[in-house]
């Protein structure tokens, strides 16, 4: 199981939880599980999210492997100038 | 779309062309305002009269102890004329503040005057200097104080067919000088938010005997502030006199709020600039040697 930290305004979709647990070995699975377990997250996931794994931010990358002790943080999709 | 460009060889020919045109016309010397107007589509003149071929318009000539400055003399040319700079440093510095080095290569004091902007840099200095414009028109030549040329923002008192061929700045006795200051948010490239030109005459011991204090960008036209002059005449520009001058200047302001400044700011800073310009002119006139 992976602990995923979500940002505050998504808590409306996670019964108020700041951290949710899903079964996933990589980002693709993680996003799929999140969408299934918390349908309220789906619109945001479809609009785009980044994921931080142990402090490193990934914008896309389905097959990035997640270890059991990894720190996983869901973030909005990043844009820049 | 049917704009014509003409390049007359004489002033009379130019006046004739301007008088005969049915629609909007523009006189072209430096072009730094005219081309901006054309670019923005603000005006669509039927005729552009380039006056630079007219004899004398590009010359600075000595006359009665003063100087006659041709209508197409650029700011850069003015700044290079040592005798003129020595006689009327404030007038020259005012013209030299207009725009960039590039604009200085073209911009003229007559153009600055005829654009009709209350914020025109050279106008307060010219009015403080009692400068006289020479006007060519269908009925011949006439002279008119610069002070009487601006009427309201964008409007001047010249009649159909008339245009200015030169500006005359008069001779000066000893112990006289002038100065011009403007406030802009940057150090260059802005239009004056508020400005002040001051011309002074002193007696041998440094007492001010006469003064002309003129403000720009605080009313529909530049403002000659007689109360400000009164505040310093008879003084050696001590703090109290300067405070009275600043107060008189602020009292004479009738500015507007716009994208460049507020009523409050213009009113307050007009006094500050007049005070500072008066001190510079005073130093130049030898008041504090």
């Amino acid at each position: 199981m992976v602990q995923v930290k979500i940002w505050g305004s998504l808590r409306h979709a996670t019964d108020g939880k700041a951290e949710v647990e899903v079964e996933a070995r990589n980002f693709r699975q993680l996003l799929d599980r999140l969408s299934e377990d918390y349908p309220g997250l789906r619109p945001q996931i479809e609009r785009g999210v980044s994921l931080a794994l142990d402090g490193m931010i990934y914008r896309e990358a389905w097959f990035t492997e997640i270890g059991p002790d990894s720190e996983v943080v869901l973030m909005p999709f990043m844009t820049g100038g | 779309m049917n704009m014509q460009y003409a390049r007359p060889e004489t002033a009379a020919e130019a006046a004739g062309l301007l008088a005969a045109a049915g629609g909007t016309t523009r006189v072209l010397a430096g072009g730094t305002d005219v081309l901006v107007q054309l670019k923005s589509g603000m005006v669509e003149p039927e005729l552009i009269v380039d006056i630079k071929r007219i004899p004398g318009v590009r010359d600075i000539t000595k006359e009665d102890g003063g100087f006659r400055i041709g209508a197409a003399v650029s700011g850069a040319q003015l700044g290079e004329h040592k005798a003129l700079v020595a006689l009327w440093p404030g007038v020259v510095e005012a013209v030299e503040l207009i725009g960039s080095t590039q604009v200085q290569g073209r911009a003229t004091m007559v153009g600055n005057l005829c654009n009709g902007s209350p914020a025109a840099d050279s106008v307060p200095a010219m009015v403080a200097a009692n400068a006289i414009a020479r006007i060519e028109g269908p009925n011949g030549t006439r002279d008119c104080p610069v002070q009487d040329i601006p009427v309201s923002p964008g409007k001047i008192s010249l009649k159909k067919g008339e245009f200015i061929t030169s500006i005359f700045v008069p001779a000066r006795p000893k112990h006289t000088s002038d100065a011009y200051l403007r406030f802009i948010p940057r150090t260059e490239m802005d239009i004056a938010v508020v400005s002040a030109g001051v011309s002074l005459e002193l007696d041998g011991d440094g007492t001010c005997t006469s003064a002309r204090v003129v403000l720009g960008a605080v009313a529909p036209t530049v403002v000659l502030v007689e109360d400000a002059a009164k505040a310093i005449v008879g003084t050696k520009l001590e703090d109290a006199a300067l405070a009275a001058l600043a107060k008189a200047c602020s009292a004479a302001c009738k500015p507007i709020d716009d994208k460049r400044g507020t009523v409050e700011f213009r009113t307050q800073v007009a006094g500050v600039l007049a005070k500072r310009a008066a001190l510079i002119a005073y130093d130049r006139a030898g008041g504090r040697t």
Partner: protein
Amino acid sequence: MKSMHISTTINGDSAEFVCGPDETLLDVLRNRLGLTGAKEGCGTGDCGACSVTLNGRLVCSCLVMGAEAEGAEITTIEGMAEGDQLHPLQKAFIDHAALQCGICTPGILVAAKALLDKNPDPTDTEVRYWLAGNLCRCTGYDKIIRAVQIAAKEMRSA
């Protein structure tokens, strides 16, 4: 709108063109003569990207009418290097990274050359005020001012 036939000198070579009375010198250089080194950043004399010299004076070519080129001598960025020899300013700009995107560079070089022709040993402040009409949005001007001074020094010792 009647077109005019204009004879002029550009970078030392005689040139002729036909233009409408509403065309600026910048329009003519870029569209009629293929000299696209002068850039239009604003068209109102506020950015200096179109700087050229007209009869030895630094001007914004967007504020000059094409018709005014009649009988005049004009120099543009294209005339700055002598053959394959870059002007010391051009070389200093490359060597000292005084350009990033490069759009303002032609105008700044023409303006800086006009300064050094007039004043071979300017102070930093003089350089900054001379170039105040040349906007650069990439560099913060720092490396431009340094490069002008380096070129000035080299030209003085040459």
